[in-house]
């Protein structure tokens, strides 16, 4: 058997053991073979026991690692212990239990902690963060977390089980931004969160919740804040001290704040009383640099050391720079073109799916930082079903389906996008060109960003919306329901969610409701597969054109960086270090 072409589980094991496949490839192939996550985990463990993984141990100067790899072996540490990271915009809300944006969570991972976090590049394995260990009963109704006895907040107050309970209570009762991440599982914090002893806290569920750990590892919401700071700063009109927490940081993370200037920079220094391993960097500085070209220059001159916000064209150029590493990684983000469910019948939507320029968009617009996908679920998310086919461009088939849908040559459709969004504009033009070949006119409408957001997430009736609008999503944690429900359930239409094109399919609703309460991973896979098949083929909701690959640019001497498909654009500051070159 050729281990380079693993066609069964044994072949996959051989390939894994000989280090011919990365963890990502093992996961992907395993899923294609129909293996469950535990089986794949066993395979990965075997792979690690069996010898070297695919991760290199030394950094070839100027090389661009393929994924998730800044080597860690043989440390020769640099004297320079400052890490400057670039953001594209300010972070107005620093309250981790309220902020729901990607840049904020990247910042939070330096100073706040969840109880557990995702392990390395895995989307389904966990490792300690604030909690040292955790366990759950067989039917996933009780989850127990053990805290370190020496954990303290930046304000010096102890972080014991009671403090953690109070923090979660604040999060759930305040009810802001990402509250749904945890409130789906814990509706009554007073009853469901139990302090067993000062270092032990238990979460009790009303029914089996196999995804609770995944949610607890989300970077959106379940971060622990200081109850002492809450008490000190709450007021009669602000019982959760949200105003104060939106401008200040008091967590348990490895770095404590020194300077927090919304539009300028965020400076952190190492927290000496941190309960975990001492991180390498003395200072983390997050600079706000709105201009693309300036960010690139700062990276190329070495003034900055890390940036996750570089456009694809600059990334291609920076890949050639021997002083930089461009770390590419798969994410859980899937991008799509929403189709107006009220204005387009099933045949029409199927026809438009065939008319989309898949390959051109990935190669020419996204510059290879994406790959084809067969539905709204990325292959890094539990529930991905490799057996569902992927659309490819077929204009003949498109024309046939559109004709059957009653669409005539010369009919005009509308595609709306945000002015200034060059990527969306380029995709729309390619789509327009394809449709023109089969006699269909596509009118492109540019509107300013706020107007587009308002239209998408407001209460404008579907008849007054365009036929096509672009969109994309990644789940807050590894959960297909979390990805699909806000976008395609009929309860999420208009201002009630993100179902901007009023997709309403009773069967999909029914399956999603079942999926929400799925008690096992097998059930999640089965239900997700059924939903994705309908959303993609039987009654298409959108044109699912790409699973996005992201890239983080680092100086060549930075080591220990491990990107995660769910912690998109974030950094594992606690493990990163700089090599003396």
């Amino acid at each position, binding site marked *: 058997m050729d281990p380079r072409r693993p066609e069964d589980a044994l072949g996959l094991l051989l390939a894994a053991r000989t280090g011919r496949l990365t963890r990502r490839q093992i996961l992907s192939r395993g899923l294609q073979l129909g293996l469950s996550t535990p089986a794949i985990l066993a395979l990965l463990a075997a792979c690690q026991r069996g010898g070297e993984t695919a991760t290199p141990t030394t950094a070839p100067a100027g090389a661009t690692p393929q994924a998730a790899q800044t080597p860690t072996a043989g440390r020769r540490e640099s004297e320079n212990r400052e890490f400057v990271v670039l953001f594209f915009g300010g972070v107005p809300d620093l309250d981790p239990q309220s902020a729901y944006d990607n840049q904020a969570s990247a910042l939070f991972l330096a100073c706040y902690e969840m109880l557990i976090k995702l392990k390395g590049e895995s989307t389904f394995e966990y490792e300690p963060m604030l909690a040292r260990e955790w366990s759950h009963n067989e039917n996933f109704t009780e989850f127990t977390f053990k805290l370190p006895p020496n954990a303290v907040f930046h304000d010096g107050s102890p972080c014991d089980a009671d403090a953690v309970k109070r923090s979660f209570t604040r999060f759930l009762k305040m*009810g802001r931004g990402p509250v749904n991440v945890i409130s789906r599982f814990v509706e009554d914090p007073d009853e469901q969160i139990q302090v067993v002893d000062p270092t032990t806290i238990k979460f009790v569920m009303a029914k089996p919740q196999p995804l609770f750990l995944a949610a607890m590892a989300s970077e959106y919401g379940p971060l622990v804040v200081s109850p002492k700071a809450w008490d000190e700063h709450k007021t009669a009109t602000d019982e959760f001290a949200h105003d104060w927490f939106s401008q200040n940081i008091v967590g348990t993370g490895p770095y404590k704040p020194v300077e927090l200037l919304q539009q300028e920079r965020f400076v952190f220094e190492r927290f000496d009383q941190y309960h975990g391993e001492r991180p390498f960097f003395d200072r983390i500085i997050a600079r706000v640099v*709105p201009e693309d070209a300036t960010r690139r220059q700062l990276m190329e001159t070495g003034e900055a050391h890390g940036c996750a916000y570089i456009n694809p064209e600059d990334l291609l150029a920076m890949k050639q720079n021997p002083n930089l590493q461009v770390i590419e990684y798969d994410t859980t983000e899937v991008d799509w073109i929403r189709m107006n469910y009220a204005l387009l019948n099933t045949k029409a939507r199927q026809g438009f799916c065939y008319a989309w320029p898949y390959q051109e968009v990935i190669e020419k617009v996204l510059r290879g930082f994406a790959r084809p996908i067969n539905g709204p679920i990325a292959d890094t998310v539990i529930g991905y079903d490799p057996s569902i086919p992927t659309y490819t461009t077929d204009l003949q088939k498109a024309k046939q389906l559109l004709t059957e849908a009653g669409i005539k040559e010369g009919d005009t459709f509308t595609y709306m996008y945000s002015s200034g969004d060059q990527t969306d504009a380029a995709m729309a033009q390619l789509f327009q060109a394809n449709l023109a070949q089969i006699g269909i006119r596509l009118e492109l409408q540019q509107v300013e960003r706020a107007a587009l957001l308002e239209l998408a997430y407001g209460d404008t009736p579907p008849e007054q919306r365009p036929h096509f609008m672009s969109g994309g999503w990644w789940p807050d944690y590894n959960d297909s329901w979390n990805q699909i429900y806000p976008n395609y359930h009929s309860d999420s239409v208009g201002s009630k969610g993100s179902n901007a094109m009023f997709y309403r399919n009773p069967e999909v609703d029914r399956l999603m409701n079942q999926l929400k309460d799925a008690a096992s991973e097998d059930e999640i896979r089965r239900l997700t597969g059924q939903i994705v098949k309908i959303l993609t083929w039987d009654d298409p909701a959108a044109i699912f054109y790409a699973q996005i690959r992201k890239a983080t640019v680092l100086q060549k001497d930075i080591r220990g960086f491990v990107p995660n498909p769910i912690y998109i654009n974030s950094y594992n500051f606690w493990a990163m270090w700089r090599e003396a070159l």
Partner: protein
Amino acid sequence: MIVHLIVRRLFFLVFVLLGLSLITFVLSHVVPRDPARIIAGPRASPEAVEKIRKEYGLDQPLWRQYVRYLSGLIHLDFGKSLTSRRPVSEDLARYLPATIELALYAMLFAVVVGIPLGVLSAVRRNSFLDLIGRTISILGLSIPSFWLALILQFFLFAQLGLLPDGQRLPVGVKEPPRVTGLFTVDALLAGNFGLFLLALKHLLMPSFVLGLAALAIVTRMVRSGMLEVLGQDYIRTARAKGLQPHVVILRHALKNALLPAVTVIGLQFGLLMGGAVLVEIIFSWPGIGRYTFQAIQNFDYNAVISVTLVIGAAYVLVNLLVDVIYVLLDPRIRVT
């Protein structure tokens, strides 16, 4: 007389600001947008959006929102920013001085270079010097500021390392004790000349880019004013009396030629204050331009109205200053 003029203008300023606030408020609210949804983000639940709507009083009738805003304004309370989640007055105190300092240095550059250049261009009309002056005028008006900013940044920062990429001070350098909010002034007040030079170094590139268009206009205005004045009889008389050329030009010609330029300088300062957005974005300058840009994107009513009022007041005050300078420059002008 001048005091009378100032008092009257300040009295009318109240009505100007009232009108401005009403127009901006109505215009902001006729656009059917939901700032609460924009702030909460697409992932937030309807309950979370509703919470923000209530918190910021966006669920109140429009007239009540306006009355509440106005009553706050009387106490210099501009309300709370939806974007920064802080009182707008705090944001203005932080970001406005940054833009004022940038605009002041841009204007200083335009005046200090533009007036002599305009004078020399006029005095040496059609000479090589005049050619240089006119070329600078045309380039200053025709080069887009964002392009110039990027090019200068590339050469002076990335290639030559002569100037910083942007920001008001390097990361890690402590700001001077706050008195005016203008770092160069505050550094001097604190007696820290090294910090003054550092802040000045950070100002060089952005203020040059911002001031170039103003420089071009000032140069043109001074040149054309000088050409007109130099042809007047009283100048010929002054020369015939045997006065030194520099006395004729500086004391007799320039004083009169400056009148139209002063008006332009006043208007330009207002434009620089309101038009620094691109320069602030490229140079990561934490000014009011970037703040307003974000506020407009997020339909942050309180911030947009407050900045409009502040810029409007600045326009009125600068125009008042121009009028006062007019009277001082030309005693024939009577205050009416």
